[in-house]
Structures are given as C-alpha cells and as structure tokens.
C-alpha cells in the first residue's frame, strides 16, 4: 500500500523510443542478416540493370555530333516504358530525400506522379517504329558524324544480322563480351535487358497471386461457413491440378505474351497464399481487438482491411519472396520448353537456345543466362529464409532460453 502512494518510488520508464511496428521490426531484423544482405545486393544489381538497361546497352549513341549539331539518338529511341521507369526512379529518389514527410504520404505522392507521368509519356513519347539499328554505325563508318558517345555495350538487344556479316553463335570476345546468339544478337545486351522481364515476371505474377490469395483466403477465414466451404473446394481443385500442365496448356493454347504469362502465373499460384491467409484470419477473428472492432460497429471493409489484414499478412511475405523466385524459375522453364517469349530477351529463352538448334552446344548461352537465373532465384530464396528466421517467433524464443 505504501509504495503505491508514492509514485516517485516506481522505476521511471525509459525515454520512449519511437514505437516500431511489427513489420518494420521484422524487416530491420531481416536486413541485419548477412544472407539477406547478399540477396538484396544482387536484387539491387538486377534492378539497376532493369531500370537503366537502355542507357547501358543500345545501338544508338548517347550523344553524337553531326552536321546538324549535337543530338542524342538514344533518347529519341527510348520507349514509353523506358521513360516511365526512368522518370519514376528519379521521382522515388527525390521523394526518399524528404525524410520528414510521412511514409504513407510519400507513397501516395509517388503513385500520383506515376499516373501523371505514365499518361503524359504514353501521349507524348513516340519512338520511331521502323528502327534501323545499323544507321549510326554506318554513319560513323562513313564519317558523317564527328564524334559519338556510345553506351557501354554498343548493341541493342534486338540488333541482329549486323551489316550482313556472319554474327551468329560467336563465342565471347572483346567485341561481344558474352558472345552472340543464334540470331546474331549481342548476348550481353540481351542479358541486361532481360533483367526487366525477370523482375517484372517475379513481382507482377506474385503480386497477382497474393491479391487473389489474400482476398479469397481472407474472406474464407473471416466468414467461414459456406464461403469457406466453397473456397476450400476451389483451393483443393487448384492444388490438385498439376500446375505445370495447366501452365503449359494455358501458354500453348493462348499464345506467348509476357503479360498473359504473368497473369497466368498469378492465377495458378494463389492457392498457398489463400491457405496461409485463411489460417491467419481464422486465428485473428477470435482475437479481442478484432472482436472489439466488430463490436464498435466498424464497417466490414474497415475490420477486414484496417484491422485484420496488416496483422495477418506477415507470413504471406515470407512465401511471397519464395514465390517470386518460383515465378522466375517457372518463366524460364516455360521458355525452356519453347513456350516463352519471342523477341523480348528473357534468360530462360536464351538458355533454351544454348541447346542449339544446330546441334552445337554453345556454352556461353548456357552459362551466363543460366547463372543469372540461379543467382536471382538464390537471392530471393536467401531473402525469404532471412525473413522467415526474422519472423519465426519460435526461433527467437529458443535463442533466448
């Protein structure tokens, strides 16, 4: 009794640290692990190539001087996608500097600018449709230009049959650092430009899968009853389908298209996320804060998305990073089976060409893209492992014993 009367005798609380959300804590813990660091470094490198690909490998000079003065053919040839990605990277970099603005607000600004930039670019940017890759080389050879600054790899990924010389299946040399493909394209340039596809396939397809999975799983977990019953049948059906056959069927019947492929990968990959989310939501539904939220009469949308989703989505993160790795592998497998993309460079497709229609094994076509796939998948898996270790409370507890 006595002690309670005197609040001074109670130990003073420590000066309050900024409260950190569970997610932030997990992410911080994860980035502290060396496996995750290696993984993130590699993904960063791939992302860098994906963003700045057109500036790294292009047949068009960055700058050159002709009789008409100095101009940049490369800028002229940037596609709308190139411009949007570059512009958004710039915006993101600038926004990161405004540390004081709230993170959510910055994301909103970023998205807003993104929409504006995309619309503007799609309206304004009209790159030439008929591209003559060799024109600048020919112009330089004919001394029409005084000087020109080329990109590091002076070939575009689809720059083929140059000057009608035999450029097919050249092994790596000073001119072509990674050799050339069966169509005479520079492999190094294709490798760089393929980064974008590798990233896009991983992120978009996993994103789609997560969206579907979380929504279906969330609904199943929250409502249970017949929604759950129906959903579980759907989950059962989709988990019993041999996914690879379904994928191959999809691609074989609907044709090769990058976006279609991502959507299909998403459509077939949601089952795991749904099961995860369902289990989480079933647990969460019983928890007091959710009961309280319901009791307060909050609308369903608010209960589901504001109160339950942030708490239930963490384990999904782990499987998402494995999912991204899986999607890249699947894309390369499909490409390898000859169901991949045609003109756009993709690692799997290059690896497929290594087997050689000509019956000749071209090692550079196997090693470079193959190991690019390997390192990327490895990186994602490392991140996933680190994330799992960071989240897994059991391991934490064990470490404290």
């Amino acid at each position, binding site marked *: 009794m006595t002690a309670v009367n005197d609040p001074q005798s109670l130990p003073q609380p420590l000066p309050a640290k900024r409260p950190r959300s569970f997610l932030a804590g997990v992410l911080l813990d994860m980035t502290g692990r060396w496996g995750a660091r290696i993984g993130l470094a590699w993904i960063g490198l791939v992302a860098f190539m994906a963003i700045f690909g057109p500036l790294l490998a292009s047949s068009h000079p960055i700058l050159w001087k002709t009789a008409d003065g100095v101009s940049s053919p490369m800028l002229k040839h940037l596609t709308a996608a190139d411009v949007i990605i570059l512009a958004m990277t710039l915006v993101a970099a600038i926004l990161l500097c405004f540390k004081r603005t709230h993170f959510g607000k910055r994301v909103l600004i970023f998205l807003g600018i993104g929409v504006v930039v995309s619309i503007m670019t799609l309206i304004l940017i009209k790159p030439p449709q008929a591209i003559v890759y060799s024109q600048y080389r020919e112009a330089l050879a004919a001394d029409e230009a005084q000087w020109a600054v080329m990109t590091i790899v002076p070939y575009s990924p689809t720059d083929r049959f140059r000057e009608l010389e035999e450029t097919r299946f050249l092994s790596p040399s000073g001119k072509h650092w990674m050799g050339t493909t069966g169509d005479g394209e520079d492999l190094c340039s294709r490798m760089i430009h393929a980064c974008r596809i590798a990233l896009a396939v991983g992120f978009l397809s996993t994103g789609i899968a997560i969206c579907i999975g979380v929504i279906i799983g969330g609904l199943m977990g929250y409502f249970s009853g017949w929604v759950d019953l129906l959903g579980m049948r759907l989950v059962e059906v989709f988990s019993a389908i041999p996914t690879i056959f379904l994928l191959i069927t999809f691609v074989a019947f609907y044709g*090769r298209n990058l976006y279609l492929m991502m959507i299909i990968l998403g459509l077939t990959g949601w089952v795991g996320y749904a099961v995860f989310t369902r289990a989480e939501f079933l647990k969460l539904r019983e928890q007091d804060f959710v009961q309280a939220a319901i009791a307060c009469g909050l609308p369903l949308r608010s209960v589901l998305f504001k109160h339950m989703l942030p708490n239930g989505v963490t384990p999904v993160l782990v499987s998402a990073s494995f999912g991204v790795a899986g999607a890249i592998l699947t894309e390369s497998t499909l490409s390898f089976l*000859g169901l991949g993309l045609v003109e756009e460079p993709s690692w799997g497709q290059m690896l497929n060409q290594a087997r050689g229609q000509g019956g000749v094994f071209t090692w550079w076509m196997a090693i470079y893209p193959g190991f690019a796939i390997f390192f990327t998948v490895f990186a994602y898996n490392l991140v996933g492992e680190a994330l799992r270790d960071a989240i897994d409370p059991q391991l934490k507890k064990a470490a404290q014993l």
Partner: protein
Amino acid sequence: MDNRFGLKDWIVCLLLVAILITLWFKMIQDDRQWDKLSKIQTTLDAQGDELTQLANKLASGVHVTTTTQTGKTNLDADGPFARILAPMNEPDYATGDWVIYPFGSTVSKLTPLISSDVYQRVLEDHVMESLANRDPMTLEWQPMLAKRWTISDDGLTIVFKLRDNVTFSDGKPFTSEDVVFSFDWIMNPKVAAPRDRAYYDKVESVTANGPYEVTFKLKETYFKGFDVCAGITILAKHFYGQFTEAQFNESTGLLFGTGPYKLADNPLDWKPGEGKIELVRNDKYWGVAPAIDRIVYREILDDNARLVAFRNGELDRYGPTPEQYVALKEDEQLLKEKQLFEFETITGGYRYIAWNQMQEGKPTIFADKRVRQAMTMLTNRAQMSKNLMVGLATPCSGPFHRLGKQANPDVELWPYAPDKAKALLKEAGFEDRDGDGVIESADGKKFTFKLIYPASSENYKQMAFYLKDAYARAGIAMEPDPLEWSIMIQRIGQRQFDAMTLGWSGTIEGDPNQIFHSDQVADGGDNYIHYINKDLDKLIDEARITMDEDKRMALWHKVHAILHEDQPYTFLWTTKAVLFMDKRVKNVLRVKTGINDVEEWYVPRKLQRWGL
C-alpha cells in the same frame, strides 16, 4: 509394444524398395526376351511350312521358280525394274547388309491412311505399292501393279489392266478386288482417313471387271485425274478386310502390302516405343528383289546424338540442319567416309510472303500492284538465301519449280532494288511526310503491318527478323507476329492478317487453281489473299481441262508470267535438300525426285557390316 519405426526399419524399407525395383526390371526384361523368342519361333515355323510345301511340290514333279533373283525372267528390262537391274552388272554387286536410317521423332502408328506420322510415309513406300508410279528420271508414269491402262478422251474413265503374277507378302495373290476394296475402305466415313477421302472425292466409282481389270470413273475432267487413280494405296482385302473400322482406327502396326520389303514384326502386334522399326526383304516379292536385306529405322530424337551416331557409323544416312551442314561440309575426316548429296527436287516446294489484299471488306495497302512489286524488290532474296539458308536455297520467280516443265523460262526474277522500290512506293503515294521515319499515304495512313509466321520454326523467325530490318530501311514498320500453328490456320481461314510467310510443297505438275483462282477466295479456299485476276482465272480454267500436255504447258507459262507481274506473293525461293550417306552404300544416285530408292542400292561384299 516395441519400437514402431526407427532407423533400422527405415533402412529395411529402402532395401525393400530397391529389391522391388530390381525385380520389376527383371520381369520387364524377361518379358521382352520371351517376346523375342516367340517371334523367332513363329518365323522358324513359317519357314518350316514353306520347306514342306516346296518339298511336296518337288516330289510331285512341278517345276519350281523361286521368287528371288532368278524370277526376273518374265520382267521386261525397261519396265519398273530397269533401274534395279542396272547395278547388277557391276563387278562388286552383292546382296546382303542392312541400311540404318535415323528418325527424328517417334512413330506411333504404321497403319496406312490413319497414321499422321510423317515418317510412316517413308515406311509405307517400301511396303506398299500403287498401280503405277513415276520414273524418277523422266517423271513419266510407268506401270507397277497395273501393266497397262487406257484413258478415255474426256479423261473421265480410266481402265487399268492388272498384272496377274503379283502376290502380297504372305503369298496371297493380288486382284482387282483389292483395288475396289481399297477405294471403298478409304471412302468409308468410319475409317479415320479424312485426308485421303478428300483427295479421292474426285473419283466417282471404282469397279472391277474380272479379276485383273478395274475401271475408275471420275466426276469431272481434270488434268491430274490419272495421278489420283494411279496413286491409290493398295490395301489387301484379305488382310485389312478382317478388321472392323474401329479396330482399324485403333490399330498401330497394320502395314502390309505387295512391296519389296515387309515389316520384320508381325503387323498385328507391332507396338510403338521400341526405339527402332525394322523392314526385311519380302522373300515372296513378285518383282526384282532388292540387294539390301534389311532397312532399320532408329529413333534418335536429339539432333546432337543423331550426328554422333552417324559419325560413329551407327547410321548410314544423315540429314543435317543448315548450321550443321556449314560445319560438316568442310569436315575432312567425315567426308572421307561419307558421301554428300546436295540436290533440289520439284517436289521440294517454295517459300513465299503472301500479301493480303482485302481485309474486312476493305482493300489493304497491298491491293496496289506497285506496292507488292516494291515489297518484292525490297526483299534481298539472294542475300537471305545465302545467309539464312546457308546457300541451300535458290530464289524463284513463281509457283512453278524451274526444274519442271510448267515454269516459264522467260520470266526474270525481280531484282533487289531498294531505290527502285522506294520510287515505286512514292509513285503509289507513300512517303515520309511527318519525318518520323515511317512512310505514309497521302491521307496519313502509316505503312505498318504485321507479318504472321509459325512460331515453332526457328528459320521463319530469323526470316521475319531479317525482313523487319530490311523493310525498316525503306521506312516500313513491320512487326513480326509469330502464331501457334492452329491459330495461324484459323487466322488465315478468317483472312485476318496483313502479310504472312509460309511455304507450299510441290508436286510434279502443280495446279495453281487452288491458290490463285478467284473461285477460291470464298470461304475455305486457299486464295486467302483475295487476289482476283480474271485473265488468270480463264487461263487456269482452260489449262485444267486440257489433257494435251504441250498445250497445257503453254497455258501454264502464261499463268507464270501473269503471276510474276502481279506479285500476289513475293515468291522467295525453292529449297535444296542436303544428305550425307555412308560411302559403303553404292549406287546411291541423284534423281529428279531426290535420291533414288533403297531398292536400287547395294553394298559390295567386302564392305558389308550388318547381319553377317
């Protein structure tokens, strides 16, 4: 009560699995060897029977003529067997030995009519025969199972007199009933042979007049009417007639006929998936027996593995890919042991780019003849055939092969002339008015189009990429659009494409009606580019019912000239075939249809390797 599952049980389980697998293997192999034994047994039995019969005949004092080489006496030297008889005079001629062929895909069905395997055709040619065939050098029809024939003046009735000494490989005689049966069987809608049925739709009826004469009645006069009738695959009534249609449709190995070779296995229980198919010499062959004992077809799916096997001498024949060809033709070591054949045949067909002139009821850019001519002149065919086809292609000017009589020798190739082409395009109203590098018409319509091509083919892909670059130089934006074959067929059927590239296979005398006649513009026809030229129609109609060859050829020449001028297609090139053969095999000759048949080959005694 004891430990239910520990490490020891685990190991025991593993061992059990291993033992079970081993047992399984053992049983499989025992089965296979049992099959082999029983096969040998049946062959032995059959030979025993034959010997008994022979002995009986001898005992009864009948003069016996064997059906092997000595039986050739009743065959005229310039008949169908002249070419087989020719090498027999060579000093090193000998019978025996095998020829080993590679197959690049699995053959799942040998039964004629219903098999859709490309390679089945190869086997069928050795096992089954038709009423007449073309001489490989002169390309004239020569008698096979029919000894002569008469054609009515209107070309509607063809009467074949059949040989009376022909037997099937089981010794049963061949008669007119088999011909009638063959036709009926093909036309039986329950038999899964829609393709042959469509082909023989031109024939109204086949009737037998006595055992050795058949009459074919055609529905309409047609210059190829005889080809249709003479080429019919002869099915033995006593053999194929024993099956219901359903049995026939589901059968796998029913390959049986009068030919010089027969299936080594019993046709009734041949099963796919063995990795090889063997043909043996038909000992009861009615004609001149070939020298080679056995033809073995090995299935090797991998390009590389096939090449290795050929190098090692495990294969006698090898068709390289263009890339391999470039490397192999300079391979001294290989050329020491192998002979190289590079040849072009009329049946090789041609490649083309088709320009669609009408889409959704509106004429397209390509409706203008000048544009089509310009496109042809922008296409550097010589360069492409040299680079992409590694020299295995010859640019062509029209649908008729230059080796055949149909081609007009006076027609000159359109040159590769980009400047001229640009001028022509300008004349047609296309120039770059807004400075974006793409030319457009006066009303601002940009010259852009999509080229569709089959996605599965590496070669078409390269071609499309190449063309894209070439057209870009003239300010034309072309987008390659690879399509899955079925989708491509559908798009072509619906006429929904700007331009496409494919090839047509050739026949000895082609019929342009199907492709260029305006009749075929309507649904289902092959004039999917909506090309209409009334003069051409008239010429084709006339030629088709002209039975006199010289007159017909004159008409074809005119057709060729018109097509060249109009350029409904950009005719790209005819292709060459390349073939490596083991030098051990002699009398391998080039003929107009390619390489002569195995029946004409022989291996000198010293060089023989197999089946000794």
